[in-house]
């Protein structure tokens, strides 16, 4: 999560300097939850469909930094080759599908990946996970996807990062139950609730949910309470977030909380953390520098075809 924070700080500066292609949507304040999920998953076995605030989860799952910087900086060598952008990037062949913008739509896709593994007889020991925001829970796609996963009893972990806002829209215009984890019972699946600003708690609850799913207990819904610590995107100052909310419990910075937890629990020393910081900053700098040197997509060499199949008779 620290690496992701450093990377995202860099992306933010690059955005402000006008170096980024497209928008920048950051996961500040959501790293503890996202990294907990990415860490609990096993790359090569599990599936992970990140959403727009999951840089930390991507990094923890094993996505190389260069995939990120290439996409943001418009390098043609990035995983999406300039065809799709930044937070949409994915490597479906490596278990990480490339999201579409339409919120909620990835839930059923991950369910389908797991369903395929069951048909192929290789589901055992595998889980799939996806993240959504509080806003995405209002979509029909979310409902259909969660319910279908429940019917098929798939090892799907749905992490709802309730950052209290969907763009500018506060929770009370999105749902009126007390806690979104109350939805789980209606789907006949297990629900979990956690303070998403607390790394150790998030890691524990999310790992537990992942292991429950892995052991055959069916879909798990984890609802994490937290706050987005930046605007919706870097174009937005988030000034609609009321001061009491910003200064409230969930306004605390999960990265700072985590650092303190690591030191307090003697998992790491301050010096170690500082050394990581330097190392990550260095890595980020290298990934940025490399991507910046690479060529951008060339429309004249672009293969303008949306299908693999090519027909003799085709003129469109």
């Amino acid at each position, binding site marked *: 999560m620290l690496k992701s924070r450093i990377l995202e700080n860099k992306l933010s500066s690059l955005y402000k300097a006008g170096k980024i292609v497209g928008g920048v949507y950051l996961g500040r304040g959501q790293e503890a939850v996202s990294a907990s999920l990415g860490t609990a998953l096993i790359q090569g076995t599990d599936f992970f469909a990140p959403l727009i605030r999951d840089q930390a989860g991507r990094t923890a799952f094993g996505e190389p930094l260069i995939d990120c910087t290439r996409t943001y900086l418009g390098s043609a060598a990035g*995983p*999406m*080759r300039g*065809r*799709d952008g930044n937070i*949409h990037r*994915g*490597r*479906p*062949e490596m278990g990480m*599908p*490339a999201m*579409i*913008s*339409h919120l909620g*739509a*990835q*839930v*059923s*896709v*991950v*369910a*389908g*990946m*797991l*369903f*395929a*593994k069951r*048909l*192929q007889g290789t589901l055992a020991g595998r889980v799939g996970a996806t993240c959504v925001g509080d806003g995405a829970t209002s979509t*029909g*796609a979310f409902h*259909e*996807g969660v*319910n*279908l996963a429940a*019917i098929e009893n798939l090892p799907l972990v749905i992490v709802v990062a309730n950052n209290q806002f969907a763009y500018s829209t506060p929770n009370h215009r999105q749902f009126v139950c007390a806690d979104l984890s109350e939805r789980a019972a209606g789907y006949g699946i297990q629900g979990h609730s956690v303070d998403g600003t607390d790394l150790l708690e998030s890691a524990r609850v999310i790992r537990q949910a992942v292991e429950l799913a892995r052991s055959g207990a069916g879909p798990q819904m984890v609802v994490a309470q937290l706050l987005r610590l930046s605007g919706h995107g870097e174009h937005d100052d988030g000034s609609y977030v009321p001061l009491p909310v910003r200064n409230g419990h969930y306004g605390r910075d999960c990265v700072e909380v985590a650092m303190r937890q690591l030191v307090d629990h003697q998992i790491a020393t301050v010096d170690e953390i500082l050394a990581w910081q330097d190392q990550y900053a260095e890595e980020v700098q290298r990934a940025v520098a490399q991507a910046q040197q690479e060529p951008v997509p060339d429309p004249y060499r672009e293969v303008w*075809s*949306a*299908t*693999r*199949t090519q*027909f*003799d*008779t*085709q*003129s*469109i």
Partner: protein
Amino acid sequence: MSVTYVDAIREAQETLLREDPRVFLYGQDIANFGGAFKATKGLAEAFPNRVFDAPISEDAMIGLAVGAAIEGMRPIIEMQFADFSSIAFNQIVNQAATHFYRTGMPIPLTVRLPSGGTPGSGPFHSQSMEGIYAQYPGLIVLTPATVSDAYHMLIDGVALDDPVIFCEHKFLYRWLKAKTIHGDRLPIGQARIIRHGKHATVVAYSAMVHEAVRAADRLVQDGWEIEVVDLRSVKPLDMDTVLASVARTGRLLALGEAFPWGGVTAEVVSRVCAEGFHLLDAPPQRLNARDTPVPYHPKLWAAHRPTPESICEALRHLLSF
């Protein structure tokens, strides 16, 4: 012994399930019940754990298929009626259709759409959506008109690496019969001259092919020889065959059962005009359904879609130039 169009679709799915372990079927009421139109009858018993009843969640049905395709499967999704694919619209046009261009990984799923009008089916069980889906890059849109095409094109469609929208016509399901499903097999992307003629070309697809042939038969008594081209697929469009026919006849009527604005007939006419303007001896014409929802009452329905009478009238007009 004869086979119907819907038999052919059932047979194709049986063949696919037997021969390709990557194929599975997912759709509402398709397992033990065999589907609203019995297009999957007996398949759940014959292929345990390959044929699944879906919840009433069209969006998630296509999402599931996309995910399964990513992991190497070849799902066939039955929509109970084409009209209900409006619920899955986003997953079809934005998730499935864009995936190959975005990621380089194709999504070999097939969506079966029981399409088109039948008497008494009304606005929400009668739609022809081929012209909607064909507008989106990344989709292949098939519209078989014969028993044999229903069989072979479903087999060939599932073999394609790209998402296929398979528009099967409900009116043809039981009405259209053939001696065998193993008729003339053409590759996907190739149109078929279904009836030869020299005075005008009707370009049609799906159920309208048969209405066009009926109209052509009637015009024989007036000395007119009408050529009928069955497009077979509306995306891709086989312009070679269409242009060759128009070159012979000099006259074009594009015929479809969908709503009149845009759609297949507009695409056909405008491509013929762009690519074969000099071949035309008369203004190219279109005939589509009317610009209202498909009405429920059979009397209104019969006047809403093109009929042999209205096709004859359009052809006479075309031939009058």
